[in-house]
């Protein structure tokens, strides 16, 4: 019923759990998956402010973040391989919620699936800020996995 599912992940435990769930759902619905990791531009500029000039260059930082992003989407691709689900990895840079909304449109997905919380953690809020923003603005159905 959903031909294409966008799984958004930030590599945190709850969001990897959600990704696993998303792959399982895709399997049972015979959907294709696009897995999206957004490199948070705010995190980059903050890290840059504190690291650059102390032996780190901007390129080093970007490369490190890119590598870690690639590792995370590769992990979800591996879940897809194991389940026999076609997973297309996608790495973008920007504001996570806005990029998720953009890519959902560009990729013409039928469903956005994400964890209720990401890296920001569970204790502080009932629902994470990225999930909340996506829920507020998405025209596409959104599944929130706790």
């Amino acid at each position, binding site marked *: *019923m959903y031909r294409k599912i966008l799984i958004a992940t930030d590599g945190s435990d709850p969001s990897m759990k959600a990704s696993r*769930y998303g792959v399982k759902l895709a399997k*049972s619905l015979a959907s294709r998956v696009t897995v999206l990791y957004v490199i948070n531009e705010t995190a980059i500029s903050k890290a840059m402010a504190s690291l650059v000039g102390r032996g780190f260059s901007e390129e080093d930082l970007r490369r490190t973040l890119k590598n870690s992003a690639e590792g995370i989407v590769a992990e979800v691709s591996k879940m897809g391989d194991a389940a026999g689900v076609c997973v297309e990895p996608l790495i973008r840079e920007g504001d996570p919620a806005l990029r998720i909304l953009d890519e959902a449109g560009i990729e013409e997905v039928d469903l956005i699936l994400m964890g209720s919380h990401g890296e920001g953690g569970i204790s502080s809020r*009932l629902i994470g800020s990225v999930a909340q923003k996506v*829920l*507020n603005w*998405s025209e596409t*159905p959104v599944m*929130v996995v*706790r």
Partner: protein
Amino acid sequence: MYDRILVATDGSAKSKVAVQHGVDLAKATGAKLLGVYIVNEVVVASAVRQLGADKKDIETKLHASGEKAVADIKKMADEAGVAVETMVKSGAPANMIVDLARTEGVDLIVMGSHGESGVTKLLIGSVVQKVLYWATCPVLVVR
């Protein structure tokens, strides 16, 4: 993937779109559907207190519209060949939906992003917001 999917309706056209997603998901995964309408006790209380309505009368009316809303769910499910059970209960909608999901052991809650009172000024309806806060199972929100 799913054994039991809860779809919550308030009878509005918007929640019907969400019901269709629930029906389709149930069909695709072989799940049973639980269609739920909650008579909002706050609406009853304010009708009685502020408008001087008769409590029995207003409850009967709201229950009747609830029965009509879940009958629509049943019809949609029947047409798709999906097994369905329906319930009309009284309470605070979000709390009831979260509680029912737990006690009935559902795997997924499906709701519209806005309900009856869903004026577009809110980005997301208050009932679904609360369900998102407190549900222990995944929640699918359909705009």
